[in-house]
């Protein structure tokens, strides 16, 4: 009895010694800020004067804040369009690459290249590509006989779509790599058995590939939604939320409210709304996954 309690104490000391370097930083720079910003979301503070307790007023103000509503809507549109398109293209690319083509690594690298490139560099290039009068995209459209091509980032109707296109282009590679890794984990003999049973390619994809890949698909849907709600660099460089508020999005609004307008309490409330959205989506996904995710 005494022996085991001594072993327990020793283990505890060992455990915490190993944890120490990380847990100090974890508590100070992660846990404390998470709690602090929750409290801040119930206050009014500009960083200098007194911190005033404001109850739920920040959250109530969000309801009638038009910019916030537009940002939320834009974020939702961005997510609703970019996530399905990105994941679909990524899965098709992965399945194609998994068919044993010559030069898989070259193709994989090509598709992955945008993802490892700094968003800011990518955004600067696309800004020039999108240039309405001189850019090569409209140059190409004009040569195809379209006399009045969209003005892309300069147009309130097209700006959001333009940002979404870049975001899809930038992130396909990341998800494709995840799918490729998932596909390579599927045992080959499953397909051989199906072939013997006379199953066609489509039925093999539906009955073997999709179910076996479902844990990865589940993971990528969650990550895709979360990442799309968090888009910032692209918006900051491409449009600064404009023209008008056509590409104003949640994280851009949080940044702007905190670091340009110095409304720390209000920005914290926005951040917690973002957190709540992510949390709800994740929980729904986890509930739904029982129905279709197959962990073998």
């Amino acid at each position: 009895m005494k022996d085991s309690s001594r072993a327990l104490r020793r283990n505890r000391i060992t455990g915490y010694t190993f944890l120490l370097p990380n847990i100090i930083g974890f508590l100070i720079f992660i846990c404390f800020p998470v709690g602090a910003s929750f409290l801040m979301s119930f206050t009014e503070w500009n960083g200098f004067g007194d911190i005033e307790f404001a109850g739920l007023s920040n959250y109530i103000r969000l309801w009638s804040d038009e910019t916030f509503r537009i940002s939320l809507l834009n974020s939702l549109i961005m997510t609703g369009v970019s996530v399905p398109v990105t994941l679909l293209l990524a899965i098709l690319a992965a399945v194609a690459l998994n068919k044993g083509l010559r030069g898989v690594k070259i193709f994989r690298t090509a598709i992955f290249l945008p993802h490892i490139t700094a968003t800011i560099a990518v955004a600067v290039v696309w800004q020039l590509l999108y240039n309405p009068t001189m850019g090569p995209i409209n140059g190409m459209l004009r040569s195809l006989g379209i006399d009045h091509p969209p003005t892309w980032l300069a147009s309130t109707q097209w700006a959001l779509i333009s940002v979404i296109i870049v975001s899809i282009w930038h992130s396909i590679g990341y998800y494709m790599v995840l799918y490729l890794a998932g596909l390579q984990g599927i045992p080959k003999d499953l397909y051989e058995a199906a072939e013997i049973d006379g199953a066609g390619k489509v039925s093999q994809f539906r009955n073997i590939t999709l179910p076996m890949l479902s844990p990865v698909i589940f993971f990528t849907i969650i990550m895709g939604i979360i990442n799309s709600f968090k888009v910032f660099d692209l918006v900051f460089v491409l449009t600064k939320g404009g023209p008008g508020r056509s590409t104003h999005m949640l994280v851009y609004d949080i940044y702007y409210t905190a670091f340009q307008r110095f409304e720390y309490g209000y920005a914290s409330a926005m951040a917690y709304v973002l957190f709540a959205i992510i949390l709800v989506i994740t929980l729904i996904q986890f509930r739904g996954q029982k129905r279709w995710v197959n962990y073998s």
Partner: protein
Amino acid sequence: MSTWTNTGKTTIFLPKRVPTGALIRKMVLYAVVIVVSLSMIVPFLWMLSASVKSEAEIFGFPIQWIPSEFFWSNYKKVWTELPFFTYYLNTIKIAVFTTLLQIVTCSTAAYAFAKVKFPERDKLFFLYVATMMVPYQVMMIPQFMLMKTLGLMDSHWALILLGAFSPFGVFLFRQFFMSIPEELSEAARIDGLSEFGIYSRIILPLIRPAIASLTIFTFMHAWNDFLGPLIYLNSDRLFTLQLGMQHFQSEHATEYGPLMAAAVCAIVPTIIIYFMAQDHFVEGISAGAVKG
């Protein structure tokens, strides 16, 4: 039918009689993959080509991929008219320190979570995993206040400290540690090796691929970070490449050639690293999702 047989790492081609249907299917597949790959690469090629063109030649359609005259002066401008070398050093400094610190703090913590049994362990680990879901924007403002109080505003240390502790890194390492059989540590313990000895001499060498993955991952992340430097850095001499480029864009708004040259210079290191270590990179990305 032709088949590509995958035997572990290498793919060998086994020639057999090829029916036309399969051949056409394969050709369509190639065509699709090539088109997709090209659409991913064309903006890069355009950037590369624009970086050595005169202002007049950058725009215009059809695109002249190889300029009639090479304007290497764009690159010279980037390196002489801007403190680009300083931006480079700053970015390297932040990325290297963040990465080193993260490898140390994450691997020791993951060792505690995977290999040491103590009562609060699983609850603590749950807390770590739970914070992975919290978006950065939630922590952003208090972190900013904290750094202000610590007097670390407009300093690289704010960025390095914030980058040094990552729940994701702990999670990633733990995944790898869990796959190492307990018998190995047990045997070493019987031989009288200390717990730190087991961690540093037995376990760490076994998870070299994981260390490589996290190194590349963290380095790339720190290198490409934009929001962090945007919040914490004000002085031009402290700017990272990503911030510096932004600054360049607003001040020399009309000079597209040098801007493209700057973009090329800023992304070359990450592309080189990717080519050197792409397998580790892929492993690092998929470790969380596939081994889940």
